[in-house]
């Protein structure tokens, strides 16, 4: 009996080693967390079994979701046990919400145990400006109104379309760009990005 058990154990280990070698996730040796996630979550860099990036799409028939990580998409399965955080349900996820997907390797599949959407940042109401307030502000030039609009999104989004007169300070690069802000520290700074969900 003992001999049989150890033989089984050996076969199991060999199977695991083979599976690890065949894992498509590591095929190109690339990281599983996108560079933009790592800007704030650097501790995830070498974390195993997590994919981090922008949610792309969900297929109910394939029970899979796609997450963009750098220049490629990772496909991860989900099932009825997959938990979600910060959205009511998986099907409520909308492109391009950043997500962290915690998964288990089951055979050749990666099955999500938890899909964590990026939480909505809370800003005190007194500090928020509405569309109308921003519009009103923009009837004056930045010099006249003593204000500056700051677009916190990545450069590609800014290039595509930004509010007139806004400067681009991608959030991740902000510490190195503080000299772009006006010298007068009482200037009204209005930050905006892709909006809350």
């Amino acid at each position, binding site marked *: 009996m003992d001999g049989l058990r150890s033989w089984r154990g050996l076969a199991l280990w060999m199977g695991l080693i083979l599976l690890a070698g065949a894992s498509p996730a590591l*095929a190109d040796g690339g990281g599983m967390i996108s560079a933009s996630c790592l800007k704030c979550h650097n501790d995830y860099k070498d974390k195993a079994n997590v994919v981090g990036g922008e949610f792309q799409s969900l297929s109910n*028939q394939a029970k899979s979701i796609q997450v963009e990580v750098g220049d490629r998409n990772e496909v991860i399965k989900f099932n009825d046990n997959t938990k979600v955080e910060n959205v009511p349900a998986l099907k409520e996820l909308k492109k391009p919400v950043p997500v962290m997907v915690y998964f288990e390797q089951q055979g050749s599949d990666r099955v999500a145990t938890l899909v964590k959407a990026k939480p909505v940042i809370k800003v005190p109401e007194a500090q928020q400006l509405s569309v109308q307030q921003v519009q009103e502000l923009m009837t004056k030039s930045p010099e006249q109104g003593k204000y500056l609009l700051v677009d916190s999104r990545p450069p590609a989004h800014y290039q595509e379309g930004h509010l007139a007169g806004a400067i681009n300070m991608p959030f991740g690069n902000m510490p190195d760009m503080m000299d772009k802000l006006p010298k007068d*520290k009482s200037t*009204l700074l209005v*930050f*905006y990005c892709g909006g809350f969900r």
Partner: protein
Amino acid sequence: MAARLAEKNGYTNVKVFHAGVPAWTQAGLPLISTAQFVNDRLGYLVVIDTRGEAAAKQGHIQGAVAIPLDRIVKEKEQFPVDRKAYLVLYSDHTDLDKLAPVVKQISSWGYQRVFILDGGYQGWLKANGPIQKDLVRTKIFYLPRPHPGEITGDEFMNIVNNQPPDKLILDVRTLAETSAGMLPGAVNIPVDALSGRLGELPKDKEIIVHCRTGLRAEMGYNILRNAKFNTRFLNDKVEILENRVFCCFK
């Protein structure tokens, strides 16, 4: 978050436009595109020269269509069917006040990507963007930019009809779907089983992935691409009825 960082650096009057860009465009308010963005995407967006045909003849952005500002609303019929099409309006300079009402009008037709060129034609010249003289387009023409890895419907149907030996058509639909019929020469591996069955696929052929709508085909494409296969996918609809193939009506 950005506002906190500014406060930490001593700024005393910091606000957040929390609703951001989506709310701004939803209100039909204009966004400004840089010359670099327009140049990078040239050919895959509708660039409208609002200065009129005479000015456009003197020089205009390559491929732009000349429609005078006061006529744009009357030309609604010739705008693209695709409401996600990129539309960029320009005048001599940014001319925000002049162009903003027209942007609002076009947005109200359902277009989600209507922009004003930063600096207008003068800014374009300064950025050394490509220009044309004389030959001015007066009819809107729009071509969406293909996504990486996509195959056109025409090339796909060519492969279906001619079965070239260096291509393999992979059908990633479920068994329930494929039992009603498959494309000639196609191999079926449902996308949810694909990662475990990569060994069945050849590395020396280009694998063309399709499903019923394009969504699962893209997933299949990404699984194959990450496993270093040579692959593309059809981002379009395919129906097979009584051995007849109906393709590409997305």
